[in-house]
């Protein structure tokens, strides 16, 4: 292990880091502008979205170059810009952003893949009447996702995280006229919310313990040594330290977003959205946000580990990841929807990433995240191209023989599929998956995850071969003949295919550039590490497993595939387990009879309470007030009004009497005056006498 280089002081944020906020801000502003546009302004909307993301890509590339330049001069860059959002009492709530290798890599990946998918969407969605709305949401998503990436504060990250969840909901339900899409959107929103509640609890707990939510802040951030020591010293329940408990809570949020078992159920249903959305959000970027989050808080997860040891949160991450990897791969074997196969494969690969993070650290997990983003986006866009070419058909049993009709799509899809399977040497998936297996071999806690992941690799190769066999080989089983997609769709495929191959070579054991870059030490070229016997055994195993999977798949599905009505080859062999897998191992049904049933029972209890108890109470109070009002009315009419009326009558009578004196005759007045004067004079006269 080489010595890591010290991070540069954070006071010296470069001008580039100062304007890093523009990367998420520009797409969000573009999204706002698009939202104000009318429906027919398709070209302007698309141009605005693509232009803003291109700007972000350029800025992200500049930031990446800056970080690489700093690193090659021997100083790993970590520049933060923090500011106080508001304060209450003596406590500041700070937000900020960070430019370090981790965020730089993610920025480039998200903007680049995003841009390709934006361009692809202009063609894929060309006939949709809500074209501008689509680009508005896409742009908002890109901005929010980039916000997650650059956030230096758990609070800012959480805000963008929720925004990303919102756009995911909006885009899954983009075709809200379809009941399935609307239901899938709701399901995705609610399921991820379960994880987010724990995430929020973790955030609040962390804030209560450390008083800051910044990751890095000149030694006082929550991911830096001082805060971690405090957290480790603080015991929580079940023998965990506060650091461990908070790590687990935040991991629950990550598991929700990244579709880890048992919160994976929303991700396959999310395929109801448009295919570019599946590619961008539910394969390449958003679902990777959970993995990125775990990588971001890795210091917290890893805190307290002895040399070569693991911590409780990392162990949990590993087991959940490894289990998800195998579990989802098993289900993927028996799916027939082209996108659902890919969706379960995504869940499975996310499990690999989590396991890689848990066992091998940030670099191992992140490397698989980056390579996966490219080849899975490629596969989804390829699937989109296939669906488009087959007139919106998604069932692989109604395709076949497309390699002749759609040659470009076939070649690029094959590249993506081989990368996903981990075909040796030439494909990126091989190197990143191998890194995870290698880390699993070194893991001190248990050997089982290694076996699980190897088995998962076998399944991956198998189900991808099955899918490709169904779609591209055999003979055409659809109705209308398929056609190749336009260039604006195939060119992004070609670019992604190039990266699906090329990216592998930045992270091979012989030249671990990517790992060195992320971990901040110098990268050396060392061909000998490639031929280390232990490593060779792992590589040989993985190669053997991949070839076994490919061979099995080809053996079973390479020939003429069955007609749509016929049972699958495996189904004919073992109908019962096949049925379990086809029905997704009944997780949805299990939730249906537990969680959903509980909630509907609880809702009916609440309904009963509302109607009978609270409703009765309210009605009783209303009745009492009505009676009281009647009483008041009676008193008013008969007592208060009576007295008032009588008084008025008396006044009126008195007035009438007095009015009679005023008869209008001047001389009468004069007479009265004269009598009065005489009377007055008489009184004066008589009273003045002694």
């Amino acid at each position, binding site marked *: 292990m080489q010595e890591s280089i010290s991070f540069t002081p954070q006071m010296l944020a470069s001008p580039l880091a100062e304007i890093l906020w523009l990367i998420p801000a520009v797409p969000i502003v573009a999204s706002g502008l698009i939202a104000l546009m009318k429906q027919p302004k398709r070209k302007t909307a698309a141009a605005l979205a693509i232009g803003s993301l291109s700007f972000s890509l350029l800025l992200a590339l500049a930031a990446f170059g800056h970080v690489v330049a700093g690193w090659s001069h021997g100083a790993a860059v970590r520049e933060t810009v923090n500011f106080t959002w508001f304060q209450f009492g003596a406590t500041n709530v700070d937000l900020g952003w960070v430019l370090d290798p981790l965020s730089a890599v993610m920025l480039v990946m998200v903007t680049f893949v995003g841009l390709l998918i934006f361009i692809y969407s202009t063609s894929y969605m060309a006939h949709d009447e809500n074209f501008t709305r689509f680009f508005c949401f896409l742009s908002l998503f890109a901005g929010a996702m980039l916000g997650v990436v650059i956030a230096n504060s758990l609070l800012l990250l959480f805000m963008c995280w929720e925004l990303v969840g919102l756009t995911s909901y909006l885009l899954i339900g983009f075709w809200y006229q379809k009941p399935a899409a609307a239901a899938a959107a709701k399901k995705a929103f609610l399921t991820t919310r379960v994880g987010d509640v724990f995430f929020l609890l973790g955030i609040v707990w962390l804030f209560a313990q450390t008083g800051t939510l910044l990751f890095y802040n000149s030694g006082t951030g929550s991911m830096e040594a001082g805060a971690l020591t405090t957290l480790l010293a603080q015991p929580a329940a079940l023998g965990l330290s506060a650091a461990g408990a908070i790590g687990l809570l935040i991991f629950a949020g990550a598991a929700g977003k990244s579709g880890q078992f048992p919160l994976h159920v929303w991700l396959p249903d999310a395929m109801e959205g448009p295919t570019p959305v599946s590619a961008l959000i539910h394969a390449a970027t958003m679902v990777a946000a959970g993995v990125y989050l775990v990588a971001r808080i890795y210091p917290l997860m890893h805190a307290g580990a002895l040399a070569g040891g693991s911590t409780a949160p990392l162990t949990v991450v590993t087991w959940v990841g490894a289990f998800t990897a195998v579990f989802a791969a098993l289900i993927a074997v028996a799916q027939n929807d082209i996108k659902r196969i890919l969706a379960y494969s995504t869940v499975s690969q996310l499990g690999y990433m989590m396991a890689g993070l848990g066992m091998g650290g940030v670099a191992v997990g992140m490397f698989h995240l980056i390579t996966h983003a490219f080849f899975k986006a490629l596969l989804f866009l390829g699937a989109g191209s296939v669906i488009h070419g087959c007139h919106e058909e998604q069932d692989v049993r109604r395709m076949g023989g497309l390699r002749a009709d759609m040659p470009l799509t076939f070649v690029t899809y094959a590249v993506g599929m081989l990368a996903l399977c981990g075909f040796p040497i030439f494909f990126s998936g091989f190197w990143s998956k191998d890194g995870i297996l290698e880390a699993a071999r070194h893991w001190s806690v248990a050997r089982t995850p290694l076996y699980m992941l190897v088995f998962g690799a076998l399944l991956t190769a198998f189900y991808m071969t099955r899918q490709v066999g169904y779609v591209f080989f055999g003979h055409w089983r659809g109705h209308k003949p398929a056609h190749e997609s336009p260039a604006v769709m195939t060119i992004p495929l070609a670019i992604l295919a190039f990266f699906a191959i090329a990216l592998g070579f930045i992270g091979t054991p012989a030249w671990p550039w990517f790992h060195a870059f992320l971990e901040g030490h110098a990268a050396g070229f060392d061909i000998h590490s490639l031929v280390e016997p232990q490593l060779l055994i792992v590589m040989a195993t993985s190669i053997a497993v991949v070839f076994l999977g490919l061979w099995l798949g080809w053996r079973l599905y390479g020939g003429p595939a069955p007609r749509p009505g016929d049972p699958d080859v495996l189904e004919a062999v073992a109908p019962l387990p096949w049925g379990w897998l086809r029905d997704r191992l009944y997780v949805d049904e299990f939730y249906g009879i537990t969680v959903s049933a509980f909630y509907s029972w609880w809702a009916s209890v609440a309904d009963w309470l509302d109607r009978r108890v609270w409703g009765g109470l309210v009605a009783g109070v209303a009745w009492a007030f009505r009676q009281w009002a009647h009483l008041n009315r009676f008193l008013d009419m008969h007592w208060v009004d009576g007295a008032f009326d009588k008084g008025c009558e008396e006044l009126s009578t008195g007035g009438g009497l007095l009015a009679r*004196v*005023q*008869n*209008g*005759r*001047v*001389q009468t007045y*004069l*007479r009265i005056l*004269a009598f009065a004067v005489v009377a007055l004079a008489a009184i004066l006269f008589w009273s003045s006498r002694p």
Partner: protein
Amino acid sequence: MTPLAGYLLVAALLFSIGLAGALTRRNAILVLIGIELMLNAANLNLIAFWRYGPHPEALTGMMFAIFSIAVAAAEAAVGLGLVISIHRHAHTTDLDALNRMKG
């Protein structure tokens, strides 16, 4: 009987005649004449009290009477103007007919 008492008796007689006229006549002009008589009875009293009072050398009573006569002249002009205006309005100067100002 002192001279002052004689003057006062004449003034009282004059006032009574004026008051009787003002109270009994129906014609507005005659009522005005009655009022003038009462006014002059008061003036006569002023002169008499001055002339037989403690300081006959100061011309206070005479001044007062002259003021009073001037004011009475103005008042008679206003009163006659009102009577003309009423006559134009109601075509009568009979006070019993002019009873519209009642409550």
